[in-house]
């Protein structure tokens, strides 16, 4: 499953430069001043919401441990499905970093013994159907979709690909070329550099969550590696999800026939990751073809299992959720220093996410904008939360809560996610009840517990000669340059970081 990512300017999004403003949600206005006379909008009745019970998918657990979800939706004549498989790039060998990414591409483009990938392309595209594979941080997946009339055939092809891929050398090489292109281009976009390198500061350069594919490590991946990865992960707890316009009885029978014969699933081995958090200080990466600094301020966040998550979610709303957040109000609206400014403590489902704030500002205002952003983070522990802020943050989160399950596909995706990470099926309800109960005292306690301004690392990616006043004005110790030179195969790997 995807982990968070701020911006992902891939080349194939090339001309699609639609962009949204940073985010969604919250606010903090100087409400004290508002001697506003009349608020006509408060007289507009908010009626009782129409009754709504989101349709839950049917859950079927096979004897071998594989779990199936069926979500009927007869609005449109399509059927789509996916199989989610535990194990991802965090589990690959560091010497072969990038293996799972290559696997995710070459699996589909290679195809099966019965039908190679190119023939699959021809057959599927003529039907406006798709079968795709992907490799992520903690999982891989096969997914498919087609018109209802083609659903049986497309499912058979997807199942064949799931169980009997035939990895092709040519397609592995193609994937390696694509990956190499990404590697040599990874220092072109300032925002992508800031995102990547700031997460490395949090987790460490050799962490399974941040180590990056290099030309040498992707070059080391062989066909045997792909097959070995496939053989290993396909025995895990598969989660099968089907949605769309199908007959549930026939579909269940078909899926049982397909998956019941597979061996008993093996549990995932426990993980022993360590999360040291960043070494505090100021880090700098020079990029002289820009006129703006991309500043990332990072620390250690928390795991979604943490009972404080609802409180921290409310705190995030207050800090950096949207137009009304402290960061937006101060840095964008009041100071006019940035278009993009946001921040919060993130939570991943099975490991701590980073605490991070981002501000993007013209070179000369780098120090001013960084200070203002740091002050808002530190302010979580020093500037009292107000009842107004709390009410606003709760309204923002709770009134829009039903957009987490307003379509059948969203309900299905959520159930698959919860199943994958071992959360109870009613997690969203529990979480919502938790949000409702958050108090000012909770916020104060959470801020003390999780926000430690003195432990943060500040990474600036920008145009050194233009940054005046300089970063030493931040008074956070010596500025440490980070070397992001891309290692060339055959030469020793460049150190991730120089003191």
């Amino acid at each position, binding site marked *: 499953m995807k982990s968070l990512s701020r911006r992902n300017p891939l*080349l*194939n999004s*090339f*001309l699609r*430069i*639609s*962009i949204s*403003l940073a985010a969604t949600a919250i*606010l903090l*206005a100087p409400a004290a001043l*508002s001697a*506003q006379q009349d608020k*006509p*909008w408060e007289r*507009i*009745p908010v009626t*009782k*919401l*129409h*009754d*709504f019970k989101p349709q839950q998918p049917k859950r079927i657990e096979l004897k071998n441990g594989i779990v199936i979800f069926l979500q009927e939706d*007869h*609005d*449109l*004549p*399509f059927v789509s499905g996916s199989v989610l498989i535990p194990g991802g790039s965090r589990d690959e060998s560091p010497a072969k970093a990038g293996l799972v990414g290559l696997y995710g591409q070459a699996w589909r483009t290679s195809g099966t013994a019965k039908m190679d990938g190119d023939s699959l392309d021809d057959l599927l*595209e003529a*039907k*406006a159907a798709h079968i795709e594979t992907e490799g992520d941080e903690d999982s891989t997946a096969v997914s498919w979709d087609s018109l209802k*009339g083609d659903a049986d055939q497309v499912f058979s092809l997807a199942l064949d690909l799931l169980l009997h891929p035939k990895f092709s050398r040519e397609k592995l090489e*193609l994937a390696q070329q694509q990956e190499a*292109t*990404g590697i*040599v*281009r990874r220092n072109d*976009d300032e925002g992508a550099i800031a995102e990547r390198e700031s997460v490395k500061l949090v987790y460490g350069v050799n962490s399974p969550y941040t180590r990056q594919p290099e030309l040498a490590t992707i070059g080391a991946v062989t066909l045997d590696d792909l097959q070995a990865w496939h053989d290993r992960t396909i025995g895990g707890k598969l989660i099968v999800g089907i949605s769309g316009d199908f007959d549930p009885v026939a579909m269940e029978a078909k899926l049982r026939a397909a998956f019941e014969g597979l061996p008993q699933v093996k549990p995932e081995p426990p993980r022993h990751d360590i999360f040291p958090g960043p070494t505090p200080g100021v880090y700098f990466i020079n990029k*002289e*073809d820009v*006129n*703006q600094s991309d500043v990332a301020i990072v620390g250690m966040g928390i795991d979604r299992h943490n009972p404080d998550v609802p409180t921290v979610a409310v705190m995030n709303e207050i800090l950096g959720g*949207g*137009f*009304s957040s402290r960061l937006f*109000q101060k840095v964008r*609206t009041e100071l*006019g*220093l940035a*278009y993009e400014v946001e921040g919060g403590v993130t939570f991943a489902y099975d490991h701590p996410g980073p605490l991070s704030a981002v501000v*993007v500002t013209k070179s000369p205002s780098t120090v001013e904008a960084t200070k203002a952003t740091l002050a808002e983070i530190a302010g979580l522990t020093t500037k009292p939360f107000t009842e107004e802020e709390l009410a*606003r943050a709760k*309204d923002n989160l709770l*009134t*829009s809560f*039903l*957009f987490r399950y*307003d*379509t059948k*596909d969203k309900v299905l995706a959520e159930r698959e996610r919860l199943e994958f990470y071992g959360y109870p099926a009613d997690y969203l309800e529990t979480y919502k009840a938790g949000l409702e109960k958050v108090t000012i005292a909770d916020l104060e306690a959470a801020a003390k517990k999780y926000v430690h301004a003195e432990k943060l690392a500040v990474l600036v990616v920008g*145009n050194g000669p*233009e940054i005046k006043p300089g970063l030493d004005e931040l008074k956070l110790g010596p500025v440490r340059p980070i070397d992001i030179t891309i290692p060339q195969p055959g030469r020793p790997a460049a150190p991730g970081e120089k003191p």
Partner: protein
Amino acid sequence: MQSRLRTATLALGLAAMAFAGAAAAHAQDLKSFEQKITTKVLPNGLTLIVCERPDAPVFSYSTFIDAGDVNDPSGESGLAHMFEHLAFKGTSQIGTTDYAAEKVALAKVEAANAAYEAEYLKPVGRDPQKLGELKKAFLDAQTEAHKYVIPNQFTEIADRNGAEGLNAETGLDQTQYFWSMPENRLELWAYLESSRLADTVPREFYKERDVVIEERRMRTDSNPEGRLFEQFVATAYVAHPYGRSNIGWPSEVSQINATEAMEFHKKYYVGANIVVSVVGDVKASEAMPMLEKYFSRVPGGPKPEEMTTVEPKQFAEKTVVIRDPNQPIYMEGYHRPDYRDPDNAVYDAISDILSNGRVSRLYRSLVRDQQIAAVAEGVSPYPGEKYPGLFVFFAAPLPGHTPQEMRDAIHKEIEKLRSAEVTDEELAMYKTRARADLLRGLADSQGLANDLAEYQARYGDWRELFLQLDKVDKVTKADIRRVANQVFTASNRTEAWTETEAPTAPAQKTEAGNDGGAQ
């Protein structure tokens, strides 16, 4: 709140009711939409569309203004986008503690800005001391006006009432505002949306202008692709405003003032220029009278005259080369007609056959077989569709390969389109995918709201969203070859690429000039 450089096709993606029987049995054909959709044109000229979809207790809306940055007056590039940012700043009721006093204070800000700009722009004899005083007076006037502001109250009300995906986009052709909300806030939304359309107050204008300039730095100045796109279109067009930076040239966007933004509003935010669509758990019979009451507040007035500049026929091939430290990218473009052209669907077919997926010609040739590119596509229209745009090719070479190789390989594929017909399978695939894409798109209520408003505005009838299918079906192999021969000619071409070059001298300043406003 962003400028959207539109890519491919409105029309690809659109067509189709009858999925050869499959869909005919379904609730998603034109006939079924005719039963679910109610439209009404108000006396002020504004068109309302309501599409009933009671699947969940929510609705999505889209407000489509038939004005974008092509309508920016000369010397004021970026104005439409700047106004869009202003439309989040509140009204005479929202965002102020005392509008009567604030109005007076805002007038003083405008006067102070005018005085400061006049001195700043003096070609000779600018008096630094006077300039400093005027700048201080300008800043003081803003501070005074700010006393009455309740910052971000408009979005605060929306967010607290469950707005999801709240945003706006300004393109060259149009401006769109949108979000989704729980259905029990429909009237509140109608109040908010009609208020900001009818009663915009230009508060905090000069701070917001700084924000927009930061947006420009992020999207264009500090982004290698952004820099290339801007230079590419600026070269491809000599007369039409499609060639102008839609976020605004730095010296222009930094001198836009609130008075100009409000003039733009007065001219273009009139009923006849606006379509508002709502899709969701809404009963038209109950909602329409309420919506009519609120949206009648939008001023009437004639539909503003269209921008009339026509790009002259290109007769000289043009080339742009950017040398910078980044990896190479190649693009080229050919002028094509606007979206109303009878061949519009033919362009979509060409784009689909060249670029859609791993079966596409450019993928198979440049990526799979020759192994010289990581990605290669051809799409249209760009940068807009309302006026004649470009058919654009782009490619990213693999390490060790050059932009020139991209160009030569793309030209070979173009030559194939010119010299031989596409196959029956390719054409059939385009038609099948166009229909399926239309149907798939219907699932998302926000997307549907956007499409309904856009088609209503562009064609005068939302049904065209479905009726495009007829045009898709009529595309022939001969059409594709004919259009390829018409359009893909050397004299109609602009090429642009980046070449990697390590920096030698101190970096070139990309920042431009006068910040004109307050810091």
